[in-house]
């Protein structure tokens, strides 16, 4: 089974650029975590937590998702990416905007700085959405993966719009309710609408393909699609137009049932797989799927339990956000990197010569040993970090964050080993990174 990759070379370069940038920013996120653990013992609405959260969501997760979509969407719709130029402009907007935004949060530079950052990100998000919509317009009606991806793109745009309004609201205070009220909406739409929807769309295409699963019924995915969108639209109407969040538990149940249908689809794909030996990328993926249970439990506790102590509720909220971004989404992305990047590089380096000379396989282009060590360190670091947040223990968090820093270094070593992979032809044989 071969992962689908865009044949357009300049588009491939853009994809590589996104992966490399995201990897570097992921390393910086872990460093920032390490040096600001104290901030995770208090309220989430504080400079360093907001800075790290936005670097993670925009610079790391969204950056790599953009790269992956520029590769995947053209393949799903059997067409070229609408515009490589647009993808480059989007990239520039996101890098500049994200760094400026992180600076604004970290140093509390509200006013023109944060407004500029938000506007540049808003422009980038709009261009991205246009690029994806124009690329996907050839898709056949009812293509569930594309429906998820387009829907996610729309929710991204809305998330960024709300974020931009919030950036201006810090100075002009024009929103009718308090700032934190809209921050919750911004976070929920981003997490469920953009990330969750996108992950379902992409993984429902890739995971059965990688596992060589039997023929799967898409009905579960369709139910998940409608439930997630219904839950989000209901939540938005209530919270924005009616100014009331009291029905949130109802929408939470709708969203959880939607996620459950997605997990059932994955379970079916896993059960019917021909490929029993899971490689390192798929191991990351399935551990991430298991880890989704942690934020779900935290979310249920926050919404239904009788815990009234405001400090405990704050710790639960921060642990929830951290476990979604790190335990689920980041772990999933770390794994999928090893299922996509080696193929992009292999195709660039060996695609045209593989029939004439002996070539390494894509899995030979990175170190599996490093990837295994990275997985162990990431899991250990993540679990310790969550425990530290829940217990509000800074030394515990620092220990966890240190493990995450090492995991990020190992990840970067593999990413850059792939990005800078050199091909040498010697006596009609290809020597890849020094080995035949």
């Amino acid at each position: 089974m071969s992962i689908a990759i865009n044949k357009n070379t300049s588009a491939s370069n853009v994809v590589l650029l996104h992966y490399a940038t995201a990897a570097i920013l992921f390393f910086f996120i872990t460093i920032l975590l390490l040096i600001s653990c104290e901030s995770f013992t208090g309220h989430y609405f504080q400079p360093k937590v907001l800075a790290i959260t936005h670097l993670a969501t925009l610079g790391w997760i969204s950056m790599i998702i953009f790269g992956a979509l520029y590769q995947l969407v053209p393949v799903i719709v059997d067409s070229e990416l609408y515009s490589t130029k647009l993808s480059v402009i989007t990239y520039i907007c996101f890098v500049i905007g994200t760094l400026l935004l992180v600076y604004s949060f970290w140093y509390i530079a509200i006013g023109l700085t944060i407004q500029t950052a938000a506007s540049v990100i808003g422009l980038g998000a709009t261009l991205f959405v246009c690029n994806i919509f124009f690329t996907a317009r050839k898709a056949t009606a009812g293509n569930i993966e594309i429906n998820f991806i387009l829907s996610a793109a729309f929710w991204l745009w809305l998330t960024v719009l709300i974020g931009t309004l919030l950036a201006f609201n810090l100075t002009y205070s024009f929103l009718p309710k308090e700032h934190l009220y809209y921050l919750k909406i911004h976070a929920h739409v981003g997490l469920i609408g953009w990330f969750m929807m996108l992950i379902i769309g992409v993984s429902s295409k890739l995971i059965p393909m990688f596992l060589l699963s039997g023929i799967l019924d898409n009905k579960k995915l369709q139910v998940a699609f409608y439930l997630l969108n219904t839950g989000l639209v209901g939540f938005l109407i209530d919270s924005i137009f009616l100014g009331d969040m009291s029905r949130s538990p109802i929408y939470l149940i709708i969203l959880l049932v939607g996620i459950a249908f997605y997990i059932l689809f994955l379970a079916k794909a896993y059960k019917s797989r021909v490929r029993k030996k899971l490689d390192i990328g798929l191991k990351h993926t399935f551990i991430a799927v298991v880890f989704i249970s942690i934020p779900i439990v935290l979310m249920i506790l926050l919404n239904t339990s009788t815990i009234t102590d405001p400090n405990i509720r704050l710790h639960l909220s921060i642990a929830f956000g951290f476990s979604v971004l790190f335990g689920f989404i980041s772990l999933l992305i770390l794994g999928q990197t090893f299922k996509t990047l080696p193929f992009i590089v292999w195709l660039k380096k060996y695609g045209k010569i593989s029939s004439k000379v002996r070539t390494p396989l894509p899995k030979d282009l990175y170190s599996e040993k490093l990837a295994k060590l990275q997985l162990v360190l990431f899991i250990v670091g993540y679990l310790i970090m969550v425990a530290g947040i829940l217990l509000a223990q800074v030394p515990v968090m620092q220990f966890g964050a240190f493990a995450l820093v090492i995991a990020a270094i190992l990840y970067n070593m593999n990413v850059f080993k792939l990005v800078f992979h050199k091909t040498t032809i010697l006596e009609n044989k290809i020597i890849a990174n020094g080995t035949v």
Partner: protein
Amino acid sequence: MELYSESDKMTIRIYDSLKQVLDPELGINIVDMGLVYSVILNQQEGIAIQMTLSSKGCPMGDAIISNVEQVLQEDFPEFKTKVELVWEPKWSSEFISNKGKEDLGYYE
């Protein structure tokens, strides 16, 4: 009496030759992957292969097809070769041979 005709023997040799071409992701040859749908040998027209890919738009497709052509030219220089990519029937994991499944750890 010979069990196989000369033509059958030749077809088996072509299949054996095609087993040199690997799927880059799995490291399993394309015959055991069930990607080769038919091999037709014609003394006048040469070797005609009908094959598919595991997913539409797979960019490894060019490399795989190029490998197929290369291998056939090397092993059967006396024949012209033609490789046709088809999408019907749609490839499914059920097409993988028992040997392929074994290599994938299916029976472990």
